[in-house]
């Protein structure tokens, strides 16, 4: 079975050629405020390799037309490219067939689509299990669904180290639980949740499982059949692909039962004023002209990742996190939020006496890009008693030198405030 957790083989160091990889990402080789850019905001959005830029450019130069419609060559080319991209995504997730791969605008729309489609499944008093570490995108659509159906959204607790509290999970997974919606990886903490285990427990109670993979896919490849989840969603732009497109994997049987999300062209089989019938999967959920070039771009990103040794990539990312952790004591008053042993290279932190927004501004002056704020996870901020954190998040194209620059930058900021 595929290893679904993050690289545990941290001793392996097959030497990823990071310098060569960085040449594939043109945006990384620029100066910001007179300093070389250190892009450490990958959990918000990742940068795009030339392969993606070229694929989208080539598509528009040679193949663009609307899909599934034209009685002409370009229509065929566009459709081939678009459906080819769907097949690439199917392979990436190891879904059974492309009927289970629905294009959305991103993770957020995918979760909204699922929540909309499961309304019939819920009755007043039913429960939707989420966790305290969820992104707002995996809370609010469920609250809206709860509002409509009289169901309740129930959050699983998170431990001080930033792990899912399994006791709380077992306690809350009950007779009224109908849906489990949980992130594979936390965007704030970097924690890799034991989703396989959670799915097994949920399935034993016939609970529908929705996995938010937005923060997982940039770091490892999920296998939806091994996970045996009902839904798995992610956004292209965090996976080194373009913005504006995302993926909803859904088990065919469930997608069949769900009503359409939006009405319009493409999603119908026959329209008349007496009776309109829906198109087959996955088109039933794809009203309107889709993001074709973006689908092509996402497929190019997945193909590009396929050329990189996964083990080397994960080992390299682990080395970045290890270096970061080892440098934390060099900044007096720095505290890392999220210290789970199994995590992706995401470092949320606070520094005594410094506001996260000041940290962000003054790192930017040094060419270092991080995110500050509540990270669309206010319940988690409340849990840790902060209004926000600073977050450095790494990708496989980041270097140890950039990690060191981050900490040198933080030390410099501290000196400024003395």
């Amino acid at each position, binding site marked *: 079975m595929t290893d679904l957790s993050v690289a545990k083989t941290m001793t392996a160091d097959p030497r990823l050629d990071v310098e060569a990889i960085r040449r594939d990402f043109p945006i990384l080789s620029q100066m910001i*405020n007179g300093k070389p850019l250190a892009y450490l905001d990958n959990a918000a959005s990742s940068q795009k390799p030339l392969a993606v830029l070229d694929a989208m450019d080539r598509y528009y130069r040679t193949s663009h037309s609307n899909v599934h419609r034209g009685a002409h060559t370009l229509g065929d080319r566009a459709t081939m490219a678009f459906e080819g991209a769907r097949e690439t995504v199917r392979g990436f997730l190891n879904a059974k067939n492309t009927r289970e791969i629905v294009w959305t605008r991103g993770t957020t729309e995918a979760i909204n689509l699922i929540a909309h489609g499961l309304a019939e499944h819920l009755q007043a008093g039913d429960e939707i299990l989420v966790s305290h570490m969820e992104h707002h995108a995996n809370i609010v659509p469920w609250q809206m669904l709860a509002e409509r159906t009289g169901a309740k959204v129930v959050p699983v607790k998170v431990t001080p180290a930033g792990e899912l509290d399994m006791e709380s999970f077992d306690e809350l997974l009950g007779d009224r639980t109908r849906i489990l919606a949980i992130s594979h990886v936390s965007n704030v903490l970097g924690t890799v949740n034991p989703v396989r285990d959670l799915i097994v427990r949920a399935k034993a109670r016939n609970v529908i499982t929705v996995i938010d993979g937005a923060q997982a896919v940039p770091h490892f490849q999920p296998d939806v059949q091994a996970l045996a989840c009902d839904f798995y969603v992610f956004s292209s732009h965090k996976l080194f692909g373009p913005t504006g497109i995302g993926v909803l994997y859904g088990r065919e049987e469930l997608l069949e039962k769900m009503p359409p999300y939006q009405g319009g062209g493409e999603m119908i089989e026959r329209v008349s004023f007496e009776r309109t019938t829906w198109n087959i999967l996955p088109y039933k959920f794809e009203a309107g002209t889709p993001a074709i070039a973006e689908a092509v771009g996402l497929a190019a990103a997945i193909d590009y990742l396929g050329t990189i040794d996964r083990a080397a990539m994960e080992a390299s990312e682990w080395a970045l996190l290890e270096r970061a952790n080892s440098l934390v004591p060099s900044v007096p008053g720095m505290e890392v939020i999220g210290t789970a042993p199994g995590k992706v290279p995401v470092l949320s932190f606070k520094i005594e006496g410094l*506001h996260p*927004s*000041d940290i*962000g*501004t003054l790192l930017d002056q040094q060419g270092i890009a991080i995110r500050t704020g509540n990270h669309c996870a206010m319940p988690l901020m409340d849990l840790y008693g902060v*209004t926000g954190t600073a977050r450095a998040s790494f990708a496989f194209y980041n270097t140890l030198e950039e990690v060191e620059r981050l900490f040198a930058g933080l030390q410099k900021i501290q000196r*400024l*405030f003395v």
Partner: protein
Amino acid sequence: MSATAEQFINNPLGTRTTIDDVIEDMEFLDDWEDRYAYIIDLGKQLPTFPDEARTEENFVHGCQSQVWLTEYVDPDTGQMYLLIDSDAMIVRGLAAIILVALNGRTPRELLTLDIDELFERLDLFRHISPTRGNGLRAMVGKIRDRAAQQAAA
């Protein structure tokens, strides 16, 4: 209320410290460290913000940090005095610069003032990140709203 009125009127920012002082000071600072150290120092001069004014109505939306703003109009002179508070030091510094530029003017003066031109003279926007710039604009926008309310009152 008189203690509070004094808190407003005794604020040196915009009364004893003028915009020309700040422009002159900033001209001598050529790297980001000195510039930000100066801004942070200015922020330390903000008078204490009254706790009772930390209300939703006085909260400035559109900033990354928490920002509050309140005003007092001197009934004799018609001058509007402002107090601003933030939990972020750089925002406090920017608030201090705003006060230096806008504090103690009448609401009518504030409404006719070309604030963008003023900040251009300060060369401020060039040196602060866009998100910070939004926060600055949010504070200035709130001051203009208050000036408009006071002018209409």
